[in-house]
């Protein structure tokens, strides 16, 4: 397996993009990435697109063909593949692209992620997101996606003494980061009080504990390392790509306060990259709910199990702390167009490793990690990136 590099990145602003269609946001991100990689377009061997539910959000399946066509590559007849793993669709698309290049099958691959969530009413969006759960044994009984995470939060509080304030602090921190990101959906700080007093969604989680509905797209260009320098000076290496699965339903896990898929994928990734958790400078973590970030920083090995809340409260996951988590603002403040998120995480890490993150730059960042989750932990994809 040969080394794979990222030679170009692009993304749209995330938010309620009323004037832009799914196709338009996908193309925008893709063209930016291709331009950033100094490609003309003819060099592209294949296309991978992460998208959770085009079929239900915009009644459009066959997303691979849609993106290949509207990005102008239909005439080149390149292979185009849509990848789906609920919230991990983007991260998994990156992994599929990585495998295609690492194996030697392709030299240059564009990986994008896109989701258009605001063309349906909110109530419908909740129902569509519930399709990441166990439809037969969770959703039909009234368990919403937020309520599954709320149950994780309540159990974490029960077992480890994590407080409501510590959980809420994740949102406060990520909004602080988002305020430094011109592409973020929310660019305003929020106080702890605002988070604690927000309308309940599924207790103990409120509106401010949950990532928003967003439209958006992101894209990266992957290239075989041996050819990367031809296109760009700022080459970033994919040092590790790992993936793990777990039971679909939360109630079938051995311990609902641990995402074993995160632990296992992380172990595989650290082994491949030959690094330890302490070596990671900056991480983009799947905070679709505040509690998800607390679980993740424990399961990724940054902090001991049960201490994620305390670490967040102490500022260990923001600038000046042990590892800067979600410098982009995370899913919470940056936005969460489901299929795009995993790719946007990679875009942020590359931006940080290139030193181009402006006001939210993590000084001296050399190793970054992206952690993308599908469902309530049924799929986890972890990537580790390094400066070359």
């Amino acid at each position: 397996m040969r080394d794979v590099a990222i030679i170009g990145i692009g993304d749209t602003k995330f938010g309620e993009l009323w004037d832009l269609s799914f196709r338009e946001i996908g193309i925008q991100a893709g063209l930016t990435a291709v331009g950033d990689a100094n490609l003309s377009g003819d060099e592209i061997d294949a296309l991978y697109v992460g998208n959770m539910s085009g079929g239900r959000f915009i009644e459009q399946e066959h997303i691979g063909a849609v993106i290949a066509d509207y990005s102008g590559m239909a005439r080149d007849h390149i292979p185009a593949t849509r990848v789906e793993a609920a919230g991990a669709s983007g991260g998994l698309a990156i992994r599929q692209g990585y495998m295609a290049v690492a194996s030697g099958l392709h030299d240059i691959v564009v990986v994008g992620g896109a989701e258009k969530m605001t063309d349906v009413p909110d109530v419908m969006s909740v129902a569509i997101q519930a399709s990441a759960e166990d439809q037969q044994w969770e959703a039909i009984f009234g368990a919403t996606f937020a309520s599954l995470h709320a149950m994780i939060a309540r159990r974490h509080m029960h077992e480890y003494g994590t407080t409501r304030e510590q959980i809420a602090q994740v949102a406060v921190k990520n909004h602080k980061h988002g305020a430094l990101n011109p592409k973020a959906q929310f660019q305003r700080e929020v106080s702890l009080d605002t988070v604690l007093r927000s309308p309940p969604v599924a207790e103990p989680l409120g509106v401010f504990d949950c990532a928003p509905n967003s439209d958006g797209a992101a894209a990266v260009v992957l290239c075989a390392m041996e050819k990367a320098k031809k296109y760009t000076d700022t080459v970033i290496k994919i040092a590790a790509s790992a993936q793990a699965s777990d039971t679909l339903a939360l109630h079938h896990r051995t311990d609902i306060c641990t995402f074993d898929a995160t632990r296992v994928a992380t172990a595989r990734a650290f082994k491949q990259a030959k690094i330890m958790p302490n070596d990671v400078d900056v991480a983009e973590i799947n905070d679709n709910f505040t509690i998800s970030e607390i679980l993740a920083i424990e399961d990724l090995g940054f902090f001991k199990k049960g201490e994620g809340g305390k670490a967040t409260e102490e500022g260990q996951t923001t600038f000046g702390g042990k590892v800067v988590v979600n410098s982009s603002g995370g899913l919470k403040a940056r936005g969460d167009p489901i299929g795009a998120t995993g790719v946007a995480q990679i875009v942020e890490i590359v931006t940080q490793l290139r030193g181009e993150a402006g006001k939210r730059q993590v000084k001296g960042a050399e190793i970054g990690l992206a952690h993308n989750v599908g469902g309530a932990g049924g799929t986890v994809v972890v990537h580790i990136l390094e400066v070359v």
Partner: protein
Amino acid sequence: MDGEMISRSLLIFSKSVPSPDEDTITISVEAARDMMKRVSINPCDIGAIYVGSESHPYAVKPTGTIVAEAIEASPNLTVADFEFACKAGTAAIQACMGLVGSGMIKYGVAIGADTSQGAPGDPLEYAASAGGAAFLIGRKKMIARINQTFSYTTDTPDFWRREGQPYPSHGGRFTGEPAYFKHVIGCGKGLMQIVKTKPEDYDYAVFHQPNGKFPVRVAKQLGFTEDQIETGLLTPFIGNTYSGSVPLGLAAILDVAKPGERIFAVAYGSGAGSDGFDITVRPEMQQYRRDAAPSVRQFVENKKFIDYATYAKFKGMIKLAEVVS
């Protein structure tokens, strides 16, 4: 409309309200399952299940089939749903008596249950409530013997509901003398004539109870005392459970009755008809596992009150937008 005044005129102080996730099917299942907890039979020996109600959730697809699956009596049995206003449950008892008595089946289950409707503002709304009871009819290990049943039926349009209409209509005061009283008395007198009994021969009596006043009046007219009807008189506390009315009253009596005691029960269904039963409690009642499930009294006492807004929401009177997905 003065709530206090209506309460006094109907002698109803509270009524049961079904939760939005309850209906006649869930109530029938709960009653049937509680019944099964108290007996030791193989559900496969149940040959018939009949559910009587005015509020079957489906106009076509019987409540009884779901009850059959829920108590694991499926598939070797017959099922049908009954309708005869408030006496659909007792008609089901009679049908089971026939099948069991003729030897065609070993056990039959008869259920009377309802989540009653009443148009907002109509006096009926004040009383209409929800509830049900289930009876296992058989020839072995009887806790009580139905000595005789007798019915009195005519075409009398006192209360009805047309297909597709959400709420029933009624003839006002016409529902009294020419309807309820004529049939309950006709049936009661007829029954006592056949079995050659007098009111004094009975320890308990229960009559259809659309409100707290009618059963008291008809008991007096037939010669029964307030003491005799007290145990089975539930409407003042739980409202009018329609097809559950006499079944629940009878269940409340069977919860406490002792071997040798005799029970007189007359149900009434608008349209109109009455089913009467002369019942004697048997020695087997001593071994009956009454405590295996809550008694009617326990259900009545275990209550939480809700306000009208919640009640209206539960009854679907406030229409919420339906999202097409």
